[in-house]
């Protein structure tokens, strides 16, 4: 039975191209297909993901339930009453190989203001110290890098941004906090992110972004999508408050030994 489930069963019979030039498609259940557009994460992979998403929207829109882009893949959830794996695969074959635009960024660059200060960032001083940087140097390091939105998930509006410079990459807290205030900008390993709402969390908090990152009453509901580039811009307290930022209350870690 397993044999029937490999890609050969999904791809149309007339697909006689050499294996390497075929799109990599994997069944994800009765109504979903994963399209791996790249082997490993890279800025180029994200461009491919974005392009593939746009093409799928164009060619399969009536049959789609969800498209979930990630760093190297797109999960395609379709309506099984209207179509099936083979039909989606056939359409993907026609889009393959992807014609990637050369030397240009496909996504937008979104500037996110960030108030880097110990009053909103309990881990800022500790991380600067850990990496033997002054707080100013640390801020400079975090805000000079241009990040890419690698994936969106975990919680509504939570965008994984990467990669932070190796000089400030820091593993997540051993014990997560019970409550991280909305807007908190965190670092976990080589990733950085803005918490779109109050939530539990284990990322090192180094600043706060006053913009609303997820709003049910707006379209689109969030300012970022996968593949976009993000540039943090350091702002002062007055600007932070003017943009609607709030000085949150901090709770100690879930357990006392951090």
């Amino acid at each position, binding site marked *: 039975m397993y044999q029937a489930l490999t890609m050969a069963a999904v791809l149309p019979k007339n697909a006689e191209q050499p294996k390497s030039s075929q799109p990599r498609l994997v069944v994800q259940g009765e109504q979903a297909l*994963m399209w791996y557009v790249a082997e490993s994460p890279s800025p180029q992979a994200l461009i491919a993901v974005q392009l593939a998403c746009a093409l799928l929207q164009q060619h399969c829109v009536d049959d789609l339930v969800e498209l979930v882009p990630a760093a190297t893949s797109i999960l395609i959830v379709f309506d099984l009453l209207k179509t099936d794996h083979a039909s989606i695969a056939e359409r993907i074959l026609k889009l393959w190989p992807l014609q990637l635009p050369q030397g240009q960024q496909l996504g937008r660059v979104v500037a996110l203001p960030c108030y880097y200060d110990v009053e909103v960032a309990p881990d800022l001083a500790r991380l600067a110290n850990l990496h033997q940087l002054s707080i100013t140097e640390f801020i400079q390091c975090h805000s000079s890098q241009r990040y890419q939105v690698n994936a969106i998930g975990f919680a509504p509006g939570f965008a994984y941004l990467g990669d932070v410079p190796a000089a400030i990459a820091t593993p997540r807290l051993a014990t997560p906090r019970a409550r991280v205030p909305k807007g908190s900008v965190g670092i976990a390993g080589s990733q950085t992110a803005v918490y779109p709402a109050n939530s539990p969390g284990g990322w090192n908090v180094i600043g706060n972004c006053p913009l609303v990152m997820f709003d049910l009453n707006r379209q689109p509901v969030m300012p970022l999508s996968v593949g976009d580039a993000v540039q943090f811009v350091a702002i002062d307290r007055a600007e932070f408050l003017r943009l609607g930022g709030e000085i949150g209350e901090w709770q100690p870690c879930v357990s006392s030994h951090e």
Partner: protein
Amino acid sequence: MNEQPTAMSGFLIQQAHALVQVQDAGRHGYAKVGVTAGGWLDATAARLANALVDNSANAALLEIALGGFRAQAQAECVIALTGANLPITINGIAQSRYQRIQLITGDVISVGYANRQGARCYLAVHGGLQTAEILGSRATVLREQLSPFAGAPLTAGQLLPFQPSRAYGSLSLPYPWHYRHRRFRRLALVVGAQAEFLRSQLASVSAQIYQVSPAADRMGVRLQGYAVAMPHLNLISEGLSVGAVQLPPDGQPIVMLRDHQTMGGYPKLGALCRQSQALLGQALPGDFCQFALIDAPTAIIKARAYEAQLSAIEQQLRSQAGAWRV
């Protein structure tokens, strides 16, 4: 059924808990921004409840997990209860599932606890619950703070709004469509994803009996039993679909249900078919299950055939409901 031109009324909740939730078919198209689908776990029971009160298939209703619900109708309304065989009473008098019931103003409906009769029962009211829509759906996802009451669980004192309604005559559903609890279920699994390296283990996995652990909620169900031996993998996070069977490092499968997170990085054995997802939504800790492997084209044929049957019975119920309309 006869819609009264009166203003919105509703059920005044006297007793509820976090697992009594307003649900519909779910919130679709927002996984890309991290919003999960939500929606009723047992689609068959929910849709039949809606059909019994002549609602559209997507009308919002109440999903009552494990019982523990009591409310008073603030106006006359037509209701039906389906799903798990929990003790239902109206003003203290026992009622059957899978039939249309006329409530009058002041009636108190109560859903009690039962042992091993299934996990979830559905209460539909004609016209649907009129709670606020969020991103095109009334489905509750507490983890994402998406619920009619600003993200909070339902509690006593809240009003679940509906349009008053009245119907004449009776309507009930034949017994074969009633949910019957079984302590053992076969779950249809479409093998996929990282199964390449799991090939040698598929035979053993499908030969094993798993038990539903207490770690079972709307997000997912953790199974206990044979631990799938796992090579060390560093997978890149990718989109997660409903029904996906994830394998965390301990090799004990976790089946994703409607409130699943939208991204995951664990290897996957495959994904359960929709009917099997519904069965797992009714399963209780301690129940048993076994994976039955199925290929994708067969799964689609079966899903379409089932949908045709279900649509036919829905249509039949609606046409009968229509005959009684005044």
